[in-house]
């Protein structure tokens, strides 16, 4: 048994080193391939939250988040395409299930300049109201422990099978870290969009916040998640199903995006 064990252990350490090099190389490639919206990049990915079986938050009068955010996203797409020189890709253009990973993948596969996930908020508190914009929060210690776990796993070396596992693990680590390179730009984008929401919606300013939203994690470009009003609040639910209000949300995000893209071009 020992004789079989030893080469495996060596192999494991080698795999670990190779793994680290791979992670570093791939991260480098990721940064190189996805610079912050250079002149050639002309795609904005809009992500209407939820869809299909996942209805999202629900209102007292029967409105559901997935419908409201799709309506807003379609309006926003039209606004962008008729006013800006950008192509818009929607993660869904009808009521259907789309996994959170596929939403991020769509942004990455299209070399998106910007990714905006659109939501309406839901709360346990009946009176909760207002709009806010999120960008990803990074838990650095957690990433550290993930990397550590990865190193330990590979160093342990339990035979040839681990090689396949390594690949998955590397992909997982990479995927989880994609947004980390863009957090500063994402915070800037969140700030600019939030400012427009405050001006146009007359909903309470809940500010910009950081949260660990799965959908933002794997996106390799500036990415934010907009929570326009609370569908769980009956008053705001009425506004959210109103066509004019939806158009104002779309307009606010559009203005925020335009301002952000202008800033990028100036840099």
């Amino acid at each position, binding site marked *: 048994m020992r004789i079989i064990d030893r080469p495996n252990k060596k192999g494991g350490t080698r795999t670990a080193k190779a793994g680290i090099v791979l992670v570093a190389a791939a991260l480098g490639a990721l940064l190189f391939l996805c610079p912050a919206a250079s002149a050639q990049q002309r795609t904005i990915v809009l992500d209407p*939250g*939820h869809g299909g079986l*996942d*209805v*999202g*938050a*629900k209102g007292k009068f029967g409105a559901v*988040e997935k419908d409201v955010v799709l309506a807003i996203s379609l309006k926003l797409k039209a606004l962008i395409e008729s006013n800006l020189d950008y192509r818009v890709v929607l993660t869904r253009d009808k009521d259907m299930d789309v996994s*959170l990973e596929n939403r991020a993948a769509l942004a990455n596969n299209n070399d998106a300049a910007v990714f905006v996930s659109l*939501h*309406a*908020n*839901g*709360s*346990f*508190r*009946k*009176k*909760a109201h207002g709009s806010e914009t*999120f960008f990803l929060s990074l*838990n650095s*210690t*957690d990433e550290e422990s*993930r990397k550590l776990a990865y190193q330990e796993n590979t160093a342990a070396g339990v035979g040839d099978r681990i090689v396949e596992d390594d690949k998955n693990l590397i992909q997982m680590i990479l995927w989880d870290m994609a947004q980390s390179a863009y957090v500063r730009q994402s915070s800037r984008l969140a700030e600019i969009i939030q400012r427009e929401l405050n001006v146009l919606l007359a909903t309470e300013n809940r500010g910009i916040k950081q*949260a*660990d*939203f*799965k*959908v933002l*994690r794997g996106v390799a470009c500036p990415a934010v*998640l907009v*929570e326009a009003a*609370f*569908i*769980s609040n009956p008053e705001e639910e009425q506004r959210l199903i109103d066509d004019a209000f939806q158009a104002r949300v779309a307009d606010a995000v559009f203005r925020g995006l335009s301002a952000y893209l202008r800033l990028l071009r100036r840099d």
Partner: protein
Amino acid sequence: MAKFRTPLVILLAVLLVGLVYLFIASISPERIANRAETPETPADVALLAEETRTVTLFFPREDDGLFVPETRSIPASGSIAQEAEAVLNELIKGSSKGLPSALPPEAKVGQVFVTKDGTAYADFSKDLVVAHPSGSDAETSTVFAIVDTLAFNFKSIKKVFILVDGEEKETLNGHVTLDRAFTPDFSLVAKD
């Protein structure tokens, strides 16, 4: 080797008999009868009081969602896992002061397991997800009500991994990631 075996066996037998005697004595009918009676003397009340522990629960307040503390008493079992389960059960029961609850009342606590490095794995029935209203705000409240409450009451709990039906979930209900352990965020506790 064989020489040592006989005395060892005798020693073990004596120990075993002693233990069995102690066990039987501890559950003698007299004691069982005493336990069944309602405590009357102050001494008995004090004894019962010793067996409970005061814990702090966090509930979001209506106007801004910041957590406010509420105290409860739970049986003090001495086991962190058991006490943590009791704390989470109290959290699910909801506020006694009429504050909104951050967990759906349908949710049930499975087991809590605390690792040496201070990560608590808190398992809930799938009702935590199925009966959840969804929404960023609601999901954030749920996660941090659980994490802050556990970390506040148990010094050895540094972070909390929330499981559903014994398994890791991608998100709570479409927004907040559940595939990692959360460290507490006490900035969500109201300062006034």
